[in-house]
């Protein structure tokens, strides 16, 4: 026992004053009266001190939960055993879901009542469980008796069940019967992103069986599909093309009912188009792809005149576009650094990139050895052919007197060797100078061996050495000759006159004519001849004797790359998994009219290939965080002209581009979930540095903004209170430089509540686990009892009892005082 107001106990000594006041007690009667009165006063003083005793609670509190919501087939009736148990409880509370009508006797059982969803609009079983546990006072044993069909419009049972288990409040369950709908759609779940103009898929699941399901919107029937039914459930995937962007209300009709939902349909896929060779390629591609793509072109891109000045334009064009298309755009036409930027965007940000085109793309477009070459899923292949370029050789032989004897013969030998190297398509001419100049053999095909040999044989030494007019003659002779190389070979002993050689030779060099010099016999070096060779961009040779005749290099056989863009009709095969074709893979694709040769790199997904060569026509692969595609012909050019009759071409192209595009719009990836009465939105930066200048933003359709806080680097969280019974439409995006919101995406946060008759049994409350976790059991098989986890006892006040005792003492006092007493004589006689 303890006193709540112990200060009153200080009054107790004053009770002794009654002995003396108003006069001292004498005699037995006075003593008796004093004792009675003092005792009564002591009791009152004790009562004033508020004595209480802690008593253990033998009986607990019972909470009965009655679920009479829509899915229950009948209102629950309390069994007699339950009534008895409730009557024996310390206190009893009733928690009802839906409209519950209790008889008067049952209603009297309960001290408190709490009702949920009396209009039957929902079945918040989780909240009812939480309330049931909450109604059992702290420290008091309790028991929860749950009558339910276990179906709830919200599956938020955890908190209530956890509390019951932690507090040791046994829960006894009784499963009531529930309606079993047949052919009723339960859920409409978008599979991936739904985007206007793109084929989207929704999955419909339901209870029972139905032959088909139909997806409808305000615009009419969007799709219809057969459903597979088994084990009391049906399942169907419907494909449709959302006609409009925005929040689209749809309903699914099945044999047994209707389900409604709102789908978030995203805006057309933004495509940044950089095109060069094909005029109006961006617009044409946009028309080919249809309403599902927003192809944005740079005003200067189509002109093929992108340069450094256009860098800003391109940067704005790229923005946060999830896909960049480089179509027939020569690498050299792009601003400096853009290729590196594109490669970085693909690798780090996950931006999709598709290169397409013909003669201005891939290898022919000059992308070899650029930052994009490694990124592409194809190796550039360019076949080569060896070429021997045509040459015209004019041999100028010094036949002056100084060349007499062996020297002229040596010069003839050198000339012969040089001419022998020429091929039939080459040409050759012979000029001799001996004070004057003369064409010993005019320029003619090198195949005229006999004529040329005769001309050489006719040469003989004599006369002066005047070389300049001879070279001039050769220059004019070569003017009208059409060969790849034009070469003049001067054979002399070096004893030539000086003159204005340099201007002539440099003019010849400018016109592609080279002049080489050969010093014949005697000296090994002639500074003059070396100068002539240098000015003529030729070579200097020295032929001291017939044993040291050099090989005069007039030309090098070269290998030339053939154009890798091959024109002609080529059959095409479809390849790849269902993701590329949206179903059956076609087998009769039209031919193409040209393509860029390439080889698929290991790991690349080839979607189209040239039938004969197996070379890829459309291929893609993952590069870092993004997907890169290669379309080896012009999507809207001559290469695909035959496909204009292929009705599925636009869809295929759209699917190919969409697969390569980043699945995310904007710099953040958003995830929204319901958490009780809150909507929690989590924004994760998609790439490093995404949050440096822009922050995530979100607002509801009623323009309520979310306040994001950073909870980790690049991870932001925002919470908003929202009615869990209603779905919430959100626009999510990022802030721009002016802190205004740029919406990147729409989200629908579904209502946490579904019509109870449409609750998936798989999502219902697990009654057996609940009973086991709380130490309860089934009402039908388990004896009812209260939990024993008492941490504090009940408190009982003794003050009323003490007051009653004081009154009784007073009555005794009065009685003794008033009761007639026997006379002394009688008392004496009795003695």
């Amino acid at each position, binding site marked *: 026992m303890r006193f709540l107001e112990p200060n009153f106990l200080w009054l107790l000594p004053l009770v002794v004053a009654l002995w003396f006041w108003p006069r001292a007690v004498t005699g037995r009667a006075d003593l008796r009266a004093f004792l009675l009165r003092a005792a009564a006063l002591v009791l009152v003083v004790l009562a004033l001190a508020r004595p209480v005793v802690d008593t253990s609670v033998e009986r607990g509190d019972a909470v009965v939960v009655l679920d009479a919501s829509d899915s229950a087939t009948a209102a629950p009736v309390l069994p007699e055993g339950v009534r008895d148990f409730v009557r024996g409880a310390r206190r009893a509370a009733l928690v009802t879901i839906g409209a519950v009508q209790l008889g008067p006797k049952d209603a009297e059982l309960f001290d408190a009542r709490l009702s949920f969803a009396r209009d039957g609009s929902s079945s918040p079983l989780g909240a009812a469980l939480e309330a049931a546990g909450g109604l059992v006072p702290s420290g008091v044993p309790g028991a929860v008796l749950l009558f339910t069909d276990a179906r709830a419009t919200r599956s938020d049972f955890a908190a209530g069940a956890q509390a019951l288990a932690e507090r040791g409040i046994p829960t006894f369950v009784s499963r009531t019967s529930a309606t079993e709908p047949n052919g009723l759609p339960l859920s409409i779940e978008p599979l991936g992103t739904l985007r206007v103009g793109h084929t989207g898929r929704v999955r419909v699941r339901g209870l029972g069986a139905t032959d088909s399901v139909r997806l409808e919107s305000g615009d009419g029937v969007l799709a219809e599909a057969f459903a597979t039914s088994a084990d009391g459930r049906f399942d169907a995937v419907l494909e449709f093309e959302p006609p409009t962007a925005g929040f689209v209300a749809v309903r699914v009709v099945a044999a047994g009912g209707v389900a409604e939902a709102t789908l978030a349909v995203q805006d057309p896929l933004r495509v940044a188009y950089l095109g060069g060779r094909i005029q109006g390629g961006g617009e044409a591609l946009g028309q080919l792809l249809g309403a599902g793509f927003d192809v944005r072109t740079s005003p200067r891109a189509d002109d093929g005149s992108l340069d450094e000045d256009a860098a800003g334009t391109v940067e704005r064009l790229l923005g946060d576009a999830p896909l960049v298309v480089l179509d027939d755009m020569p690498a050299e036409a792009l601003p400096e650094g853009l290729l590196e930027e594109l490669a970085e965007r693909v690798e780090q940000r996950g931006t999709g990139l598709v290169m397409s085109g013909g003669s201005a793309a891939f290898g022919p477009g000059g992308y070899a050895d650029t930052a994009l070459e490694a990124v592409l899923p194809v190796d550039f292949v360019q076949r080569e052919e060896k070429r021997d370029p045509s040459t015209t050789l004019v041999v100028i032989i010094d036949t002056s007197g100084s060349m007499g004897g062996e020297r002229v013969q040596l010069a003839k030998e050198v000339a012969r060797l040089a001419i022998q190297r020429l091929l039939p398509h080459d040409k050759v001419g012979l000029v001799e100078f001996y004070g004057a100049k003369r064409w010993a053999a005019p320029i003619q095909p090198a195949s005229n061996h006999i004529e040329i040999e005769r001309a050489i044989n006719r040469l003989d030494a004599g006369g002066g050495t005047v070389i300049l007019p001879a070279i001039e003659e050769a220059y004019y002779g070569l003017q009208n000759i059409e060969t790849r190389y034009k070469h003049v070979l001067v054979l002399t002993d070096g004893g030539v006159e000086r003159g204005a050689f340099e201007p002539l030779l440099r003019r010849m060099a400018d016109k592609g004519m080279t002049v080489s010099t050969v010093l014949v016999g005697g000296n090994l070096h002639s500074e003059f001849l070396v100068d002539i060779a240098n000015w003529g961009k030729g070579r200097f040779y020295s032929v001291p004797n017939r044993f040291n005749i050099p090989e005069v290099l007039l030309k090098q056989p070269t290998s030339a790359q053939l154009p890798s863009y091959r024109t002609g009709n080529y059959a095409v095969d479809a390849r790849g998994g269902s993701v590329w074709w949206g179903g059956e893979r076609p087998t009769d694709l039209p031919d193409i009219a040209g393509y860029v040769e390439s080889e698929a790199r290991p790991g690349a997904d080839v979607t189209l290939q040239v039938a004969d060569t197996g070379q890829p026509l459309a291929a893609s692969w993952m590069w870092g965080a993004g997907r890169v595609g290669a379309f080896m012909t012009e999507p809207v050019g001559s290469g695909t002209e035959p496909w204009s009759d292929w009705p599925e071409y636009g869809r295929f192209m759209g699917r190919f581009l969409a697969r390569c595009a980043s699945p995310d719009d904007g710099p953040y990836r958003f995830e929204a979930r319901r958490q009780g009465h809150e909507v929690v939105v*989590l924004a994760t930066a998609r790439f490093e540095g995404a949050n440096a200048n822009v922050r995530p933003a979100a607002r509801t359709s009623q323009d309520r903004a979310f306040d994001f806080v950073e909870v980790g680097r690049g991870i932001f969280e925002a919470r908003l209170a929202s009615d869990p019974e209603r779905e919430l439409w959100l626009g999510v995006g990022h802030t721009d430089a002016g802190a205004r919101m740029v919406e990147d995406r729409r989200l629908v946060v579904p209502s946490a509540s579904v019509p109870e008759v449409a609750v998936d049994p798989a999502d219902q409350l697990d009654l057996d686990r609940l009973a086991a976790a709380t130490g309860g059991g089934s009402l039908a098989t388990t004896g009812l009892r209260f939990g024993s986890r008492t941490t504090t006892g009940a408190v009982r006040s003794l003050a009323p009892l003490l007051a009653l005792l004081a009154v009784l003492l007073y009555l005794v006092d009065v009685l003794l005082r008033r009761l007639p007493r026997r006379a002394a*004589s009688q008392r004496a006689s009795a003695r």
Partner: protein
Amino acid sequence: MNLTSLSGAGFWLGALALAGALFALQRLRVRHREVTVVTTLFWRDALEETRARTLMERFRHPLAYLLALLVALLGWLSFGAPIADRDDGSDHLFVLDVSAPMAVGERFEEATRALIDEVRRTDRAHRHVVACGSRLETLLAPGEDELLLEERLAAVEPEACAPGVERALLVLARRAGEDPLLVVHLLGDAPVRTEVLALLGDRTRVERILPAGSDAGSQRVAPAIVDVACGPSASGLDRVDVWARTVGGRTDLVLVDGADRRTPTTVATADGRTLFTFEDLAGDGRAVTVEFEGPGAEPLRGRAEVVLPDRRALRVATVADLPTGLEMALRSNAGVEFVEPSRAEVVVRYVGDDFGGGLPALELSTADGDDEAFVLVHESDAADPRSLLFEALGDLGLEWIDGDELATATGRAIELGERVGPVRAFRLWAELCGSGGAFARDAAFPLVVARALEWLSGRADPHWIVRAGDPLPDARAAFEPNGAESTAALDPVGGQLVPPRAGLYRSGDGAVLIAAGPAARPFDDAVTSRDAAAPPSSAFDLANLLLLLLAGLFVVEWNLVRRGRMP
């Protein structure tokens, strides 16, 4: 005025009985007769002998009777334990916030004192007091004596959990049109948003009681860890970063990793919160602690533990003679570490081998043995097969496979099936996996193998944010608390799993968690506040006044009796 230990009828019946008894006693008075005595020596004896034996006499001395009756009725009324009638026609719900922010300073004690005072002012039949922390708990049911409140409050203290007042209101305070007005009295700082108030309906009025002399309603925020998050690190696939968010302005948070105390790599403050970044930790599933350096590192607010995500390479054991294509795909996977079966998480074997025992397995079957080229083996026969297969197409990347090519190459239809088995497995034809196998040449092959291993391992994604009161991503898993804090298993019983309060929990697969206390005011409060009324003089309530009056009358009547004024 209401009586708490007597019914109205009982009181009046008792009062009538007392009045009757006293009336009878009043009439017991003897009748005097005149006797003449010769000397006063016999005065006393004469008195005795002349006393009449009359039982009843006429009722006299009504004032004395009234005094006796008053004394007796006061005592009887005190026995009835009267309380003042405070019924104002409304129901009153008192919600005491016992979440982590209430642990700051004297906030909780101030709130409980104000609660007791306020409860005394309300009608006991129409008041309900609940504590709201990680769960709802009644502290005083309607009709219960407020003495119980003090007793029960003694066992209540702030918990390491987020404020749940909004949830409590939505559970207990929604009223329909015909219900009496419910006045909700909030004690504590937990804010309530406008949207929540709107959901309660117009028959509910919410007010916050500010304890006298406290600053609980101010914007004072004591230093506390709000939450802890972790995620992949840029420094490597097997590394993680940890972020801790605090309020209160302290910048001395450290990460305790065994004997190592790490200071944050970066500290950034925005919106009144400070974000600490601890970079480049090994993601190996061990527990680390973040705490304030020095004072204030108490578990409730200044210290939080978190189990780092396990991002080590997947430990795989394989049989020796795998098809070359599969072997190459495994070897080229940087996320795979080859280990002995005893250390493995996943094994790769042929169907029928006992290699790896009961571990999840990537199993190679034969085209003759299995009709389907790909088979998912799952443990539970309760799983919806259609859902399982449908999800497998995406989860395992099977939709990227060129099925026509495989069918052409093998001369068999390529199908996906499911089985129920004792352990999770993914089977595929060994014929597809040789170096020349059609599947092994498919670009999707490494993707499917990698995703299959991931699916088999059952590794959860790294949990980004761990916070008491938020649902765990793996809602169906049962968690066992590690420690003496609670002995009950967290069991979602079909719903989301929400760790109710901070603490260290471990799941079956070794992942997770938990963090800490929430911010004091994460969002704007829409509740109007009022100061707590001055505490009533508890010593002089109605019952005590009656008792004091009774005591006084006892004394007065004693005086009268002793002076012979009371017949």
